[in-house]
């Protein structure tokens, strides 16, 4: 498979602290790839470099053979990368449907067409019953779904999921896993996820890259990665449940 996203030699420091140094990895088209690592490993920084929140100090990000590093967030989105936020950011006063319409308007310039597209996506994520409620009234689990729905509405080729399972109950987590598992097949989507919930990572990811102290220390299929001694010692520890 060809790489949809290729990061090479990414580096970023904040006030002299190296958050990320020389990080390289690839996300294959149609795959679900997970970026894992202990707290402070630089996962969110890598994520923000891709999403255009920060520009890298060094290195390059190629998306569909186009350099996207240094683009602003809205340009990254327009290039075909949708993202969710770790701390969900709904538009609280707008209805759930209107939230998703805002996303859909990137592709569908007419509001009526965007509304139709938004309804279809709400159905896919099981939010149709909540369509007319204000986003502020949703439970955390539904807010996470809304976050995904809104990003999907921009019709991305690559979806970046930032700890979308955090704070969910195991059953809610499993339901969302089912949704994500379906997306690459049904929408031709590629997913890159940052995740702490190993239950979800193991169920979803076909490929894992492990970050520690700003560097990639391991990558490969999930079974290989979790058996890797370096990964076990730095991150997983002995008491991690898989």
């Amino acid at each position, binding site marked *: 498979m060809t790489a949809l996203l290729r990061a090479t030699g990414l580096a970023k420091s904040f006030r002299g602290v190296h958050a990320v140094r020389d990080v390289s990895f690839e996300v294959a088209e149609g795959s679900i790839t997970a970026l894992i690592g202990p707290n402070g490993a630089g996962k969110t920084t890598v994520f923000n470099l891709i*999403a255009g929140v920060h520009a890298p100090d060094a290195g390059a990000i190629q998306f569909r053979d186009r350099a996207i590093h240094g683009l*602003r*967030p*809205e340009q990254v*989105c*327009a290039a075909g990368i*949708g*993202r969710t*936020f770790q701390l969900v*950011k*709904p*538009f*609280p*006063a*707008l209805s759930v449907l*209107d939230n998703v*319409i*805002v*996303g859909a*308007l*990137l592709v569908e*310039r*007419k*509001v009526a067409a*965007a509304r139709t597209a938004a309804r279809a996506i709400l159905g896919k994520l099981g939010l149709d019953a909540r369509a007319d409620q204000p986003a502020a009234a949703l439970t955390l689990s539904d807010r996470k779904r809304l976050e995904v729905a*809104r*990003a999907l*509405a*921009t019709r991305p080729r690559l979806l970046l999921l930032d700890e979308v399972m955090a704070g969910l109950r195991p059953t809610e987590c499993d339901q969302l896993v089912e949704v994500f598992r379906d997306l690459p097949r049904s929408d031709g989507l590629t997913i890159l996820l940052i995740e702490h919930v190993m239950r979800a990572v193991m169920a979803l990811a076909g490929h894992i890259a492990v970050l520690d102290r700003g560097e990639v220390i391991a990558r490969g299929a999930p079974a290989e990665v979790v058996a890797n001694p370096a990964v076990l010692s730095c991150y997983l520890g002995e008491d991690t449940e898989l």
Partner: protein
Amino acid sequence: MTRAAALLAILAVLAVAFPWFAGAYALSIATLILYFAYTTQAWNVMMGFAGQLSLGHALYVGIGAYAAGALFFHLGIGPWAGLPLAVAAAALAGVAIGALAFRFGVSGVYFALLTIAFAEFTRIAFDHLSWTGGPGGMFLPVEQRDTIDLLAFRGPPIFYYYAMLALTAGALALCWRLLGSRAGYYWQAIREDEDAARALGIAVFRWKLLAIAISAGMTAISGVFFAFYYNNLFPEQIFNTGRSIEIILGSVIGGVGTLFGPIVGAAVLTLLSEGITESLSALGWAVPGSKQVIYGVVLLGVVVFLPQGIWPPLARRLGLAR
């Protein structure tokens, strides 16, 4: 939806028929209500829709008034030719302020302070601009007229009432269209969460500038009206921060971000202000400041008991919203 349309139709008929059964005083109050309704509606585009707080909207009223007024005063160019110029000048000023602020990440209260600063700069500049009369003011030539001269925008009070009614109705229609358009959705997204808006591909900077341009341009039209209705312009008066606050109050009391809130708010505030004056003089109470105290207490009451403004709960009562 039909219920809303019916209520709107009744309101429109009442507004159109109003001059036939109203006296001169009532007509002037109604014109004032419409003037504030229109202007606060224009402000609402920027704050209510796009979430950008302007505390200096008197700037755009002043630019509009002086642009059209000076053209008429010096060159005899009528308001219809002055109008597009006034709108363009105010929109340009708004875009310049917005571009400056948003490029350098000035937002929230700091942006609001900047809008006050620009209104104040401009006031001081006009105080020193002898071409427009400086602090002594500019007086447009007035002719007493009982017939309507549409071209010169002159006529009896009823003419100004209908002009303002048309403007208010036009602003309502425009805002309604805007709110349901792509721009309206994007503005609201920006208002609710800028980072999330960016992540959905919204070029926040450009859409904010569009909101300011439309809001400032609309406000300039009320400035043109002001110039030809009152016929005198003083920098001290028209650019005053108090004027900016006056513009905002209608939306705040009626409901920021709603379509009918600004109209309801403008009506309530103007009637309240006039009502207090009338009843105080009828009662023979001439204690200085008593009007302001009563006015302030009522505003406090609205803010405390109806924090979203008068319109949202009223709309629910009327069965227009859930």
